[in-house]
């Protein structure tokens, strides 16, 4: 049992150990395997295929398992390391300690969005992007998207998601009501209602806006907070649970496209039920 800490409370030694373990996973090739996995399982909801990571009920359990797998790799290198979480409703500044030289480094420069500071700056030689959809070999960010500003989710916006007593609802996709989509944050184009998880990806910009988002190590801190928020929703609604409990029936357009409570999630063949809690594995510092 280990603890995931709020990133703002990490000591400089803890920050150094976390980034050192991440850099070592990059060096030995493990990191880029994780980047490919995330991209591979992003299936949009107009497709007929199985959606496991996004636009679907298994958004939370799939990412929980994905983070645990990554954390196992980190802890094999340094058993004192865990994934910190970033509460983006409180640490909202693009110059907060999260983005400092001794942790994740700052925003990208204006010309090409290249991150120039911190351990993941290209010039350091330890962070070359190999799984990307652009020619950029360097990590990119565009914090706050100044040319078309976007703000981080507010506490009220987050609460609006947590307050929904329904985990998810038919058609179980990016148009569905319920806690999952309110937190994942899909909305209509041009709507002001882009929310929470999606808006954080947009706010960070650069690699974090794309399918290879885990190229930016802040991905893990963002999703650790998303994981904590699933806990918070469960505590708020103890009589609600994961839906759908059973697979959509024959004739339902979503049959074969979403994961029910006891169905296996690729690539691990672990069911959402097995991911509902994390007792005995890790806990969150509050």
């Amino acid at each position, binding site marked *: 049992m280990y603890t995931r800490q709020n990133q703002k409370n990490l000591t400089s030694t803890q920050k150094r150990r976390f980034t050192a373990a991440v850099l070592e996973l990059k060096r030995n090739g493990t990191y880029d395997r994780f980047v490919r996995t995330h*991209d591979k399982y992003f299936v949009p909801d107009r497709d007929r295929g199985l959606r496991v990571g996004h636009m679907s009920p298994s958004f939370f359990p799939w990412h929980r398992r994905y983070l645990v797998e990554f954390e196992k790799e980190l802890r094999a290198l340094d058993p004192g390391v865990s994934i910190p979480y970033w509460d983006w409703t409180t640490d909202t500044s693009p110059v907060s300690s999260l983005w400092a030289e001794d942790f994740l480094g700052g925003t990208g420069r204006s010309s090409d969005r290249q991150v120039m500071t911190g351990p993941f700056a290209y010039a350091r030689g330890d962070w070359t992007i190999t799984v990307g*959809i652009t020619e950029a070999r360097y990590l990119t960010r565009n914090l706050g998207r100044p040319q078309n500003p976007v703000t981080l989710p507010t506490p009220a916006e987050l609460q609006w998601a947590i307050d929904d007593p329904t985990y998810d609802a038919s058609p179980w996709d990016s148009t569905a009501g319920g806690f999952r989509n309110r937190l994942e944050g899909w909305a209509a184009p041009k709507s002001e209602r882009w929310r929470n998880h999606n808006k954080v990806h947009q706010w960070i910009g650069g690699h974090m*806006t794309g399918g*290879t988002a885990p190229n930016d190590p802040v991905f893990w801190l963002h999703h650790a907070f998303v994981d904590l928020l699933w806990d918070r929703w469960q505590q708020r609604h103890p009589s609600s649970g994961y839906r759908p409990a059973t697979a959509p029936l024959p004739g339902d357009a979503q049959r074969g496209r979403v994961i029910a409570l006891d169905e296996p999630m690729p690539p691990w063949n672990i069911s959402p039920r097995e991911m509902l809690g994390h007792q005995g594995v890790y806990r969150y510092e509050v």
Partner: protein
Amino acid sequence: MFAAPAAAPLTRRAVLRTAFTAAVLAGTAAALAPVLRARRPRQTLTPAPFAEETYRGRHIAVELAGTAVRIDGRPLHVMRRADGSYLSGINHFQSFATPLELARAAVDELGTTQLAPAAPHHGG
């Protein structure tokens, strides 16, 4: 930092060529309407049903009858959402009403970078 968004309008030639090609391909009165609105149609032998524009110095080509998008000649991976809107490999967590808006947003995010000649696709 970039200047304020300033989309150059489709060149007249591109509009005429793409609209006329679409009309020829579809051969319907509905498809002819944009040609008539363009007032001075000119036939071309180039079968390129793409709408083109220059946006922030980048060349955008959007397939009129489909979802293919190219930026400076490089293909951008385009996906659809259940509500019909469009997502790209560059913008995975935001969707757009049209492929052209999607292409402009990708240019905004790319900065001075180019798309890779062959981007990885999902489900591979």
